[in-house]
């Protein structure tokens, strides 16, 4: 098959969603995902990621703007949009009393694709062939997740939505699944991934959009987002709230407007300054410091600077 999709795989223009009661979950966001691109949506709960995925999978009706999946408008052509896509939901979505094979068969029949050979092929690749004919109720969490990925892939979707696919899994299974998703990159499938784990986004995504309070506050490739913080960051921890320390650092001209504080941790991106000089200057101040270090910037830093939040708190 491997037919071409004309144009973008996902197009989102001025998308808005206001729920009953006036809660504005998505506030006029725009982005485009090219065919074969792996696109990450990052942000805490309440940022609007799930609402955005809900609109793209046609379970949430947008209040304004437009969205297209594989060229199909999700409001005017919902059936075509759904036919071109599959979803792996954040929560496990399986009929537990049915076998794994039956779960995948139901999907393949509803999408009017596949067959027994295709199910065998995917279950073998995902390491669940020896349990595929057993009730899902006996599967471990990781096995259920792999079954859901097999189910999503059996219809050969143009666009695959992965909504926090590794949340709640133990670290070993999580890393196995990241490998599975990484394997999808080479297939040319378009993937929209939401995650709380920034290492996942950094490893898997071609581009990342960071959402905060319904808006996209940054959208770029992971290297470009990291570059916005310079080549290094200085991180200091103080007793109590770090806001006072940050004010003092700014007052001394050590911290610029890129610096941010989370609890008792103050992070100073070295966009212009020299890290050893900054560390020396900090040591000379009368701050109640419990730790002081330099390190490479990460996507966590980008996220925290833009949202003033923590993933741990948001999870």
């Amino acid at each position, binding site marked *: *098959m*491997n037919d071409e999709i004309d144009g973008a795989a996902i197009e989102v223009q001025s998308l808005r969603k206001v729920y009953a009661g006036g809660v504005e979950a998505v506030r006029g966001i725009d982005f485009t995902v090219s065919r074969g691109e792996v696109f990450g949506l990052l942000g805490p709960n309440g940022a609007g990621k799930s609402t955005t995925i809900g609109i793209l999978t046609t379970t949430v009706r947008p209040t304004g703007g437009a969205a297209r999946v594989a060229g199909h408008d999700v409001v005017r052509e919902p059936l075509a949009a759904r*036919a071109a896509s599959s979803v792996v939901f954040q929560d496990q979505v399986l*009929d537990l009393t049915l076998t794994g094979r039956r779960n995948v068969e139901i999907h393949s029949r509803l999408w009017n694709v596949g067959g027994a050979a295709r199910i065998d092929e995917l279950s073998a690749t995902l390491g669940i062939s020896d349990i595929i004919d057993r009730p899902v109720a006996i599967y471990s969490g990781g096995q259920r997740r792999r079954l859901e990925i097999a189910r999503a892939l059996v219809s050969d979707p143009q666009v695959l939505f992965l909504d926090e696919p590794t949340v709640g899994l133990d670290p070993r299974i999580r890393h196995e699944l990241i490998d599975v998703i990484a394997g999808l990159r080479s297939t040319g499938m378009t993937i929209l991934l939401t995650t709380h784990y920034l290492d996942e986004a950094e490893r898997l995504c071609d581009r990342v959009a960071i959402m905060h309070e319904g808006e996209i506050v940054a959208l770029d490739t992971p290297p470009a987002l990291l570059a916005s913080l310079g080549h290094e960051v200085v991180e200091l921890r103080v007793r109590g709230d770090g806001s006072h320390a940050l004010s003092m650092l700014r007052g001394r001209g050590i911290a610029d407007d890129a610096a941010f504080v989370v609890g008792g941790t103050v992070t100073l991106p070295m966009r212009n300054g020299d890290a050893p000089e900054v560390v020396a200057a900090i040591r000379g101040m009368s701050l109640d410091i419990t730790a002081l270090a330099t390190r490479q910037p990460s996507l966590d830093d980008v996220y925290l600077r833009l949202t003033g939040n923590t993933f741990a708190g948001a999870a």
Partner: protein
Amino acid sequence: MTTMTAIRPLPVRTRSAAPRPAAFNALRTLAARRFALSVRTPRELVVPLLTPVLFALVIAPALRDALGATHGGVDYMSFVALATVGLLIPLNTQFAGLSVIVDRLSGAQRELLAAPVRRALLVLGNLVVVVAITAVQLAVLVVLAAIRGATFDITAAGLAWFVGAVLLFTIGMYGIAEAMASRIGRQEEFISATPAVAIVPWFFAGSLFPISVLPGFLDVFAKFLPLTHALAVVRYGLMGARASGLTNIWGMSNPTAMAALSLGVVAVFAVLGVTLAVRTFSKAAVH
């Protein structure tokens, strides 16, 4: 436990035009899923049958012995045995509605909502299974009642009236149950609402006695209950015009015309029920 030590390249391909399944194929798949889930849950098959069977096999003969075998030329045991149809169908459809809540709470419904099929088919797929299961249960009920001593006058025409009434009433009642399931968030709330929908009307619908013996205002109320009309047609089909109670409803002299009118009422109820179910489900499915 399976471990995954090495990930082979995923055999994935993408395609530009995913053909959507024909409505019939989608309906068949959805019904097969619901059936597979239902037969794995004996509760849904057996529990709704228990009370009606108890009525047909124990209470109906006891009432006959206590009150007399015939009243106005009508065999009372058969009269009560058929009344249990009006208990079985609402209970059965309510239990089926419960499975919709289970689908939603377990998350399984989300996968179905993401499928490229019209959402009305999700309701109709459930309905097909409810009708099939109810048919089996009704057959069991009628046969057991006959074995216990109930007498039915079974003709092709009578059977057609019976089947028409129970089919349409089942459709209407399932529509109510599905609409309730779409509106009610928790199983406990749904179960607590079940008696009001499935049992209370039974006491006013001429189940154990003709509606003519009810106080005047309740007599009028009973005539508005779809169950009153369904039971009248059911009895007309299997016991004849005298036992049906159709005259108490319509006050006419032509039993066939009255049966057709009552069947029409049940048909309207079925259409309204399914329409309500599809609309409520579709509205609840999209936020």
